[in-house]
């Protein structure tokens, strides 16, 4: 046991379940972490920021209960094998964002179940008139995402930027062939164009991948006799 000096926040003893505030949700989710898919990026406020996705840990899903006991690594291995960066909550490199997953007491009113709802420390749901308003401290979340890049937990380089921009260009090219009969489509084109411009402006400062990185460089050799099979 760690006996380092700590302070504790007392929680009031509740007399009944009803006395506690429960967040009404449609699904009592299980614990999850965030991961980063290698090509999910956005340009925001003059920086490349990773777009993060959740990994869910549910017994029976993606071998979470491998070998008869819960094993987060069994799930993380699946995503790492696909080139994703798993953002493990107790990674010391996260600094002030270490243990970024939090919970709130929650209930699923339709099923009468009570438990926890897992979310990130950047979210603060609010209940108004029986409805849940989901709020996220976007500034803090963006700072967290920037920290992931600075700490080297997720990697951006010029090759990744090229691929991300190429995908955006393809989306724009597809949209440009669609009749502009709704405001939504016009906005999509404007956003794609703005995204591409912002991304291109950020490519200059990116590091080129080193030769010894995951990406391999291929040497081009002249084929002096192309009609002879290898």
């Amino acid at each position: 046991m760690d006996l380092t000096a700590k302070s504790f926040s007392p929680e009031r003893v509740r007399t009944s379940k009803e006395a506690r505030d429960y967040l009404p949700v449609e699904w009592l989710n299980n614990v999850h972490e965030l991961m980063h898919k290698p090509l999910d990026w956005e340009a925001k406020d003059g920086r490349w920021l990773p777009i993060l996705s959740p990994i869910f840990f549910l017994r029976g899903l993606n071998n979470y209960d491998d070998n008869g006991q819960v094993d987060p690594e069994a799930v993380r291995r699946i995503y790492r094998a696909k080139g994703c960066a798993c953002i493990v909550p107790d990674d010391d490199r996260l600094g002030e964002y270490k243990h970024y997953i939090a919970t709130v007491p929650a209930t699923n009113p339709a099923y009468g179940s009570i438990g926890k709802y897992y979310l990130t420390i950047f979210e603060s749901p609010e209940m108004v008139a029986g409805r849940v308003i989901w709020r996220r401290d976007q500034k803090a979340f963006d700072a967290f995402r920037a920290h992931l890049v600075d700490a080297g937990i997720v990697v951006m380089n010029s090759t990744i930027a090229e691929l991300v921009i190429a995908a955006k260009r393809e989306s724009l090219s597809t949209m440009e062939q669609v009749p502009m009969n709704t405001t939504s489509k016009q906005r999509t084109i404007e956003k794609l164009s703005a995204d591409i411009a912002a991304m291109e402006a950020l490519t200059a400062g990116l590091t080129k991948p080193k030769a010894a990185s995951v990406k391999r460089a291929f040497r081009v050799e002249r084929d002096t006799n192309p009609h002879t099979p290898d």
Partner: protein
Amino acid sequence: MAADTYASLNSDLGLAAYLNMAFIELLHETKDLKEVAQYFPFTGGAGSATMKLRQIQPVDAFTAPGEDTAPSITNLTTANKSLTVAKANLYRSVTDLAFITGEMEAQQLVSSFAKSLVYYRSSLIAALGAGFTANTAVGSTGVALTVDTVYAAMFALRKALVVGDLDFVSHQTAITQFQASLRGETATPFQIAPATQSALSTADTGNVLFSWMGINFRSHASVPKIGGTDYSGFMVGKGAIAFTEAPVSGFIRQYAFNPQTLAGEEAIICQDLSTEAKGSRSWICHYYPGVAELEDARGVQVLSAI
């Protein structure tokens, strides 16, 4: 004297209300997503909770050596995926007095188990949508699902060589956003296309809400909400997701517990007699599912605003 009336007699001779014996179900999620996943039978007694699925790439390039030259050997491209089953259960206990007074019936509990099992299985499948990586996610954070986004997902899968019918799964909110977008497609040929009309008019009757352009649209309440701004839905072709259920019927035959134990193919429902001393009856439903991604490139994540 005035005649005796319902109101005057009711307090001594009647009841304020009598009980209609029907159980009327409150609103709940009824959809089953199992058809989205490919089912693999699980072999009991084979020594592991994990089943290994073998994958092989059948197409390789032919070599074209000279007429008098031996060809080089082309090795097979293979892969494998694991599918691990784990226990899930639902436990209910009702006192004898609740049964004696007719407030509860055992078949209600059993029916509830079956429906809850379908919900749980579907929630496992719905949770996989955020994990597709090979195809870049479509849709934008905080933006409603549109016809263009659905096309983008379809194009991504077709480019990845996914053939045949596709399945789209998201929260019901996303489905209505898509219908609103379809409604806004003012180009006449599009608006009167039978597929569009069907998508806009079909009442929700089963697991598939409607089919549009070869895509089966499905919804589920458990589709994860991510970042407080979006639903993480997905579109897949056949073979993207694998699921299995450890069969319990053979197990029950081999180790027959007590006559109150029932087993379907997938789940055990048993009455727990240990609560007899309390004067209550307990039922527990055990279920052993396994769900996993089978081939990443057969699926794409589809984001839409909550």
